[in-house]
């Protein structure tokens, strides 16, 4: 009977799904404001995973503490990337942005491959084997932290967008770019800020993910597809949609892994993506364009 495995699988799926959601929040924010698809999003996640890994193995910094360092660092990196690399290649054509971020992904992934080889690495932190009894299943503490941490960062992002002047400016640019410019919003600055915030979310996701996951240079590619699926499923630019879709996809992957075998786990996600794009391209929560 698979019932005994089902509940833990769903819980594990939710834990991974929360990370998917957090990654996708960054992507959907960038899409919602800049209307560009950042293909390098997964590669930046991979880079953040390596950063957290090396901070732990070389500096002894706990991944959860590393959030404090990596979020500002990745925010700055995102800001600079948007300003110096992505914006100048735009030339008013959205395909160019897709291609330039693809170029970034190729560069980052292969630099990582060159520097750190394709060896799979993970950290064995002290809480890796500590579990909590939830009554229906045992779950590693790190997964629980990841789950609630991801939700907390999601809430933080929401608060930033809702209550601050920066959030207001970002929403204004997303809604009406030229109008925002006319009332004194520096649109190019807001674009870069948005890209930076989205990249910072990736850093947070990486730090929460690392204790229960592994890192290889290829991990970004796997994640970028999942993040796109999450964004499309939730409706391009929708926050609650990305959250819900992320959790759903985590469960889908866990269940496909359970019933079809580990290697086919991600197939479920691609199939969801294809069906979604073909039959409801606006997503579950998106408005008709």
């Amino acid at each position, binding site marked *: 009977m698979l019932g005994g495995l089902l509940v833990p699988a769903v819980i594990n799926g939710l834990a991974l799904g929360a990370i998917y959601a957090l990654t996708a929040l960054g992507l959907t924010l960038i899409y919602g404001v800049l209307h560009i*698809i950042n293909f390098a999003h997964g590669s930046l996640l991979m880079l953040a995973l390596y950063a957290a890994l090396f901070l732990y193995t070389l500096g002894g910094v706990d991944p959860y503490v590393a959030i404090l360092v990596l979020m500002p660092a990745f925010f700055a990196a995102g800001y600079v990337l948007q300003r110096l690399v992505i914006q100048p290649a735009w030339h008013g054509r959205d395909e160019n942005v897709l291609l*330039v971020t693809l170029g*970034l992904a190729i560069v980052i*992934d*292969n630099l990582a*491959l*060159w520097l750190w080889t394709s060896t799979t690495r993970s950290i064995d932190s002290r809480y890796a084997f500590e579990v909590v009894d939830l009554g229906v299943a045992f779950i590693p503490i790190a997964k629980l932290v990841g789950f609630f941490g991801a939700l907390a960062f999601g809430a933080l992002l929401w608060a930033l967008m809702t209550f601050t002047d920066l959030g207001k400016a970002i929403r204004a640019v997303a809604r009406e770019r030229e109008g925002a410019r006319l009332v004194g919003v520096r649109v190019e600055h807001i674009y870069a800020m948005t890209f930076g915030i989205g990249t910072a979310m990736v850093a947070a996701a990486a730090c929460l993910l690392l204790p229960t996951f592994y890192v290889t240079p290829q991990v970004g590619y796997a994640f970028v597809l999942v993040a796109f699926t999450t964004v499309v499923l939730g409706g391009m630019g929708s926050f609650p949609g990305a959250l819900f879709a992320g959790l759903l996809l985590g469960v889908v992957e866990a269940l496909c892994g359970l019933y079809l075998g580990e290697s086919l786990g991600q197939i479920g996600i*691609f199939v969801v993506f294809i069906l979604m794009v073909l039959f409801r*391209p606006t997503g579950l929560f998106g408005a008709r364009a």
Partner: protein
Amino acid sequence: MSGKAAGSVLLAALLAVPFVVQSEFWLSFWLLVLMFAFLGQSWNVLGGYGGQFSFGHALFFGGGAFGTAILQVRHGINAYLAGAIAITLTAMVGALLGYLVFRYRLRGAYFALVTLAFAEVARVLIASFEYTGGGFGMLVPLARGAANFQFDDRRIFYLIAWTLVAGGCLIALWLENSRFGAQLIAVRENEDGAQALGVDPVRTKVLAIALSAAMAATVGVFYVQNFLFVDSQIAFGPGMSIEALLVAIIGGVGTAFGPLIGAVVLHALGELAKQITGNAPGLNLVLYGLLLIAALRFLPSGFVSAFGRRPKASPGAVDA
């Protein structure tokens, strides 16, 4: 010198390679360049002239490669027939995929990502079944002879590849001068406008993707005959998809000789980097990525545009 003249000269010069170059290494190198030039041309038919940027062209390359390998190995079908069947089936897959996607007017990023997702699904599925070679891949038995489309002399492969590339350039020139090509470019520039003038955008794009898929599948078939081996990662992995779009974009999207120029530039630089860095894994791809970024910024119309005159079919040149 215009892009077309430069491209023609380059193409003609490449014909001389097997008669001049003695080293097996450099012959293989230029053979690979020609294969990628034709793969890039297949991408260019859909992406350049049709404006539909595929991120999963490996799907079609892999369809041809695995199609012919499976038919030959598992069913003992003759190499030529197997290749023809594989190309036809892949073109049909392309048409079906195109119909599904274009019916909903999905384009831009959606189209790019859907093609990528299809290629990924194919990669995982192919690696999962014994029938398709599983994780190991497919090995086509060595049986030299023209009857099996296996030649001892690599120069024959080279000449076939050159003929393919020349044919690819002719297809592109045909697109620039034919009714169908005009319709395709019109749909690229302004779909609603083209439709208002009586062009059926879905039909036009489906035909373009079928042609593009057949061309990419041809490269796959040729690859298998040349190397007698293919696995799911080579055939359906992201590397092949990236290669296809990279040579076209760096050379010049929507130009007849862009993919050829792109393939030569890209692989010459890649090989140079390899010689300098001592074949560090991944480093030539880093260079490709940097080139892509630089090209988009400084030469958005590709290397072709470095040859003076603006190419005829470049974006913005045609008003529909």
